[in-house]
């Protein structure tokens, strides 16, 4: 009994911090999502009106769809490209540290700088990408990459991948380092080719790295707003208007703190559901 009481006492500071800094803000957001709060003054209770508006207006459901699509693109491309880089660097120890540092550099840059630089690369009239395409005789492919709803989301996704692929690579390299060298040696002795060793030995043993990479990048990307905000401000015609951007616009563009809180709660639910489903599936896969 005494032991149990002292356990609770020791846990109390941590529980207070979690309650004060994590649980309370969420409870406050839920409460605010039922009001018409404008950021200052008093808030009036409006019941389910904010949630009703979220469901009844297609623009908000579109934002959810864009967020999910963007996340799927980024997580898939980033994981695959990161894996490819890690496989090569694992086999090329002489340049591994240098390349890892180079790949990691974009992640250390500010979103604002990255956004503006890529905005000029994608610019329709004097942009770098169009200039390269023209130089190699592919003028027919030139376009306003960020100005075309068909390409804008992909263009931002590529920028996002460029920025964070170093993280993914680093996590996979740690995964490679954790594979016992005896297993690789056994594979070699059995005459397995490099591809066979990767496919049947390394890939299954990298399962924990996949779990960490996919969950971290999914949660991070679901909440992303910086690059769409800087590069397109959600345009053209909302083609890149993620849910986070919608929240920011409602907060600071329209002073609808109550409605923005409702959107935040919806986003929180989406993040939790996606993360739980992913985690369950990936953990099960690790045990196979």
């Amino acid at each position, binding site marked *: 009994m005494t032991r149990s009481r002292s356990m609770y006492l020791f846990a109390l500071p941590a529980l207070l911090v979690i309650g004060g800094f994590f649980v309370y803000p969420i409870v406050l957001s839920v409460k605010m999502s039922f009001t018409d709060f404008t950021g200052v003054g008093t808030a009036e209770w409006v019941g389910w009106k904010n949630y009703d508006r979220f469901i009844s207006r297609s623009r908000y459901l579109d934002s959810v769809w864009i967020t999910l699509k963007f996340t799927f693109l980024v997580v898939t491309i980033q994981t695959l490209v990161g894996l490819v880089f890690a496989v090569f660097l694992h086999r090329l120890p002489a340049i591994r540290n240098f390349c890892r540092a180079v790949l990691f550099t974009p992640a250390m840059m500010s979103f604002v700088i990255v956004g503006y630089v890529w905005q000029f690369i994608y610019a329709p009239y004097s942009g770098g990408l169009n200039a390269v395409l023209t130089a190699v005789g592919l003028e027919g492919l030139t376009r306003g990459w960020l100005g075309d709803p068909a390409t804008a989301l992909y263009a931002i996704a590529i920028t996002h991948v460029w920025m964070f692929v170093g993280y993914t690579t680093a996590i996979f390299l740690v995964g490679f380092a954790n594979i016992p060298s005896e297993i690789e040696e056994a594979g070699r002795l059995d005459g397995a080719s490099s591809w066979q060793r990767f496919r049947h030995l390394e890939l299954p043993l990298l399962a924990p790295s996949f779990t960490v990479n996919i969950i971290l990048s999914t949660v991070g990307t679901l909440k992303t707003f910086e690059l769409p905000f800087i590069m397109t*401000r959600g*345009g053209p015609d909302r083609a890149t208007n993620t849910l986070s951007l919608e929240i920011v616009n409602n907060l600071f*563009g329209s002073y609808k703190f109550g409605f923005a809180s409702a959107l935040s709660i919806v986003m929180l639910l989406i993040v939790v559901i996606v993360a739980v489903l992913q985690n369950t599936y990936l953990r099960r896969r690790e045990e196979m």
Partner: protein
Amino acid sequence: MTILRSSVAPAAVAAMIAGTALADTVTLDVTAWKGNESEPAGLPQLIEAFEAANPDIDVEFSYISRLDTNVVLPPRLQGNNAPDVMMTDMPLVKVWSDAGLLADLGTDSDWYGRIEDSLKPSITSGDATHIMPLEVIGMGNFVNMGLLKQAGVDKAPTTIAELKDACGKLDAAGIKPMIFTGGFSAPLFVIANGIEAMDAPASTLGGEEAGFADSAAFNGVLDTVRELIDAKCVDPKAQAGLDPWSTALTEFKAGNFAMMPQGAWNIVDFSSVDGLDYVFAPVPSAKNSGVALDLFGIGWSMSEQSQHKEAAKTFIEYFADPENLQVMLDAEAAYSPFKGGASGTPDLAAPYDQSRIDGGVIMYPFAVLDWPKPLENEIWDSLTGFLLDTEKSNEDVLERWDEAVEDSF
């Protein structure tokens, strides 16, 4: 000992006087989204002059960007820690004054009596006013006269017919006629021409009574945009999603386009470009004068919680003095919000000035709260969509505007 006493005594008296003077000095906390290095707006100079003229008031100035103002000031206002004087605009004034956080500056002051009649209703709420306007900035059409002359056009177009004619000549000369981004540039053209064609005040469309979808004026403007596309003024698909704040400005400065609807705040930047021969003209419209679309942007507001209301009032009134305000107007290439027509616009804005004189002034409806703020983004988005697919019906575009108005209630 005597020498020591005789030197200490006056020093002590001086220290006491200085101490008393220091105690009487009021420190005013002032915030603004202008006054930094990139957009000084004459503020550093004016604050220095104010302090010299009012030695008992010390101004502690903080630059807070407009975007950050939304984030930084509400908690301070809520937490009884607001600055004494804050730079505001009407959307902020609406939210903060409704919450009782801004002091009433009164309608009996000298400066209030001098405000332009067109502005007074917007800044007055019953018998109260919570903002002293500082400037009105023009939004019109930047015209590269060097390129126009190459195409054989020697006057900036002010009518739709002149615009189409100029576009035809420019296109024939291999010059791209106009930047018409779905965000900002196209909306300026559509809003200016739509309001000009309306029979009723702009505010009738921002409320619950009437809708944009049924407005003959706005339906007509969208048809005019299609005509501009046919007249080769605009390459809609390439320009619809162009960033109006970076790429579009760079393209105009580089001389890649002949015209661009934008705000006069770019004049200072454009004038620093060597060889850019341009004028600032009104938005071409059905009227001969074109439309001068004026933006009432900024003003000073006083916090209701300020402990130094008298000093804050003195500070605000200092800017109402025409001589002092002129410093800001010159730096901003702006117009005075007071009667008398003072302006800080350079000669190259003469076509826009002329349009204002000829009666073509329309106030930007979001800045005077005629239309709700969320509609602004919806107009940008929907016009971008419209430029990407001009086969869309006018109703498809304008119904989105009505939905945004409805959502704002």
